[in-house]
């Protein structure tokens, strides 16, 4: 699979996370200055130079579980707290949104335009902060440098790598169901009308040539779809009309967003069996996380600024209920890295995690942590 996929995955999921948090902060009537601080802190942590350096190194994609741990940290980069149930829901929404965007990209290369749409919106969140704005524009440049010259074939491989990450994920999102973007079986609706991808002809023509290359016959046929020519290509510049709407903020209306957990697709079971079984690659994933988060500078809450808890659900009762009824196969075990018997690794990890440790982080249940440690010791 492509080793250039992680930055695109991370930035787009991060973008979706910010859209959702922004909407929930407004829905929960969090005071404007606090809400702005939360978004600023998260964005500044996301675009931290050292972190981005690690991210852009050629590497394989890691599991959904490993990646979730990074977003868990990111969401707690400021004075805001999320319970497990809300964090689960947040991650579900982020992943289903980006899966939809990848699936619907007309050309594999359009995933770069989707990424630019997210970055454009992120710039909107931090307009009054030139330092962070500069960081984001740096990443624009780095994206252009890394991906600007890739061939269609390489983008095709990136697309396939992303779709592997999202394979068998069919969580139903009520906003998608309402907008008829998703079917009740969790599958996304694939339109067969609208503009064709840039560089593609509207289907329906057979042209025949003689041995000298002269066109001798033309036959039309009915394709079955209802397509039109693409009006123009989206811009890959720092500023420009992206044309593509995928990756823009669909939460700008104040609409409650629920995910459906019960009646999850039957197809989910075989695949997630692989996820639950002890993962012999956990060690590699932990190393990756340690490296990646080593570059993540989490500011400790300074001064008398009181924290607050954000709820992704409409009421606390709903949040509690969601936590109780979440199907086992969809639970994300947050990796809690603590002591190991490997002294050297222990010190390094402890140092990194110590810098990241936030005081009132709710501890995970002892049994989950023990299982993971036992697994690590056994490697």
């Amino acid at each position, binding site marked *: 699979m492509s080793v250039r996929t992680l930055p695109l995955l991370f930035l787009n999921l991060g973008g979706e996370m910010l859209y959702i948090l922004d909407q929930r902060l407004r829905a929960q009537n969090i005071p404007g200055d606090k809400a702005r601080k939360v978004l600023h802190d998260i964005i500044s942590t996301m675009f931290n130079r050292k972190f981005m350096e690690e991210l852009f190194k*050629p590497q394989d994609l890691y599991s959904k579980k490993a990646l979730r741990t990074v977003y868990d940290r990111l969401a707690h980069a400021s004075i805001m707290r999320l319970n497990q149930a809300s964090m689960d829901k947040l991650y579900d929404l982020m992943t289903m949104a980006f899966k939809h965007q990848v699936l619907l990209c007309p050309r594999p290369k359009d995933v770069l335009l989707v990424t630019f749409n997210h970055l454009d919106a992120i710039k909107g969140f931090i307009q009054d902060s030139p330092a962070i704005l500069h960081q984001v524009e740096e990443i624009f440049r780095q994206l252009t440098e890394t991906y600007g010259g890739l061939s269609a*074939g390489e983008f095709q491989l990136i697309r396939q790598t992303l779709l*592997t990450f999202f394979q068998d994920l069919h969580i139903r999102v009520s906003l998608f169901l309402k907008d008829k973007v998703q079917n009740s079986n969790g599958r996304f609706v*694939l339109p067969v009308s609208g503009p064709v991808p840039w560089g593609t002809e509207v289907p329906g023509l057979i042209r025949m040539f003689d041995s000298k290359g002269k066109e001798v016959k033309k036959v039309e046929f009915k394709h079955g779809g209802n397509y039109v020519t693409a009006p123009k290509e989206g811009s890959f510049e720092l500023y420009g009309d992206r044309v593509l709407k995928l990756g823009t903020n669909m939460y700008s209306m104040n609409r409650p967003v629920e995910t459906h957990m019960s009646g999850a697709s039957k197809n989910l079971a075989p695949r997630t069996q692989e996820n639950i079984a002890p993962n012999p690659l956990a060690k590699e994933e932990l190393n990756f996380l340690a490296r990646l988060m080593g570059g993540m500078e989490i500011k400790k809450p300074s001064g008398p600024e009181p924290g607050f808890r954000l709820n992704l659900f409409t009421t606390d009762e709903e949040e509690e209920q969601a936590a109780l009824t979440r199907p086992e196969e969809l639970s994300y075990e947050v990796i809690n890295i603590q002591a190991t018997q490997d002294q050297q690794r222990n010190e390094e990890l402890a140092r990194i995690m110590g810098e990241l440790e936030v005081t009132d982080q709710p501890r995970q249940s002892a049994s989950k942590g023990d299982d993971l440690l036992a697994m690590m010791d056994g490697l």
Partner: protein
Amino acid sequence: MVAVDSQGPQDSAVRMFRRERSIPLRGSAAALCNNLSVLQLPSRNLTHFGVVHGPSAQLVSAAPEGVPLAQRQLHAKEGAGVSPPLITQVHWCVLPFRVLLVLTSHRGIQMYESDGSVMVYWHALDSGDASPVQAVFARGIAASGHFICVGTWSGRILVFDIPAKGPNIVLSEELAGHQTPVTDIATEPAQGQDCVADMVTADDSGLLCVWRSGPEFKLLTRIPGFGVPCPSVQLWHGTVAAGYGDGQVRLYEAGTGTLHVQISAHARAICALDLASEAGKVEHCHGECVPDTQVCGARFCDPSGSSFAVTGYDLAEILRFSSV
């Protein structure tokens, strides 16, 4: 999906297809190109299907009405590396005296007896001169006489000499012709006829190379690309049929590379293309839309082209169609 279909010379009626019973799969199909292989065994009234799920591939055999009879899962051979190796393609190779099942992955090439029960050969890929940003994998599988040809990420085609039986398989040649990753390989189904060109290989840049097989393979023609990948290619009676990333299907004369037909066939990249071997003219006779599914594999299930099967990303079943 438009099935590039065929019609016998006498029959001028337009052929229509209808949906038949699907074959369930244990795992969904991966979003790869050419993600369906079909082995027809008319003498045993059986059809084998092969689909890649991810780190595993699924083989399922079915009776004529699509009733599933047996299932088997094969895995990519582990090796040094961080993540579980992913399979890129699974394909049955019909040789003069035996049928082998070939599996390509990001580690190498595995060959099995046709039912997948025994692995007879393993070839590890040499990632020697790959840069750190390059993905290393094998992709593109076809049988040519008693050879099996497999494409690689570097553009090289590996030619394996297959004995009539047993595991004594030997890498006999490496063909240079492509500079970008190979996407697909096709060979002339009508072996032994007066075909000079009997193999075509395709790559990510859209370049097609036409070869003549033999103790040493010879490059006959190059058909340049035009900026889009050619993920799927077929060869039949001296005609190359190629599907491209911009939705075009083009037919060329294999020997000279002359373009004969250009079809603006699809609104998205073509992922799979197949020809029924008992063919006549090429004419569009049926368009089918599989709702809300990104098709990733398509094969005819019989030589006359009266039935075909299709796989889709995230779909845990093989869809079947037959003509009415």
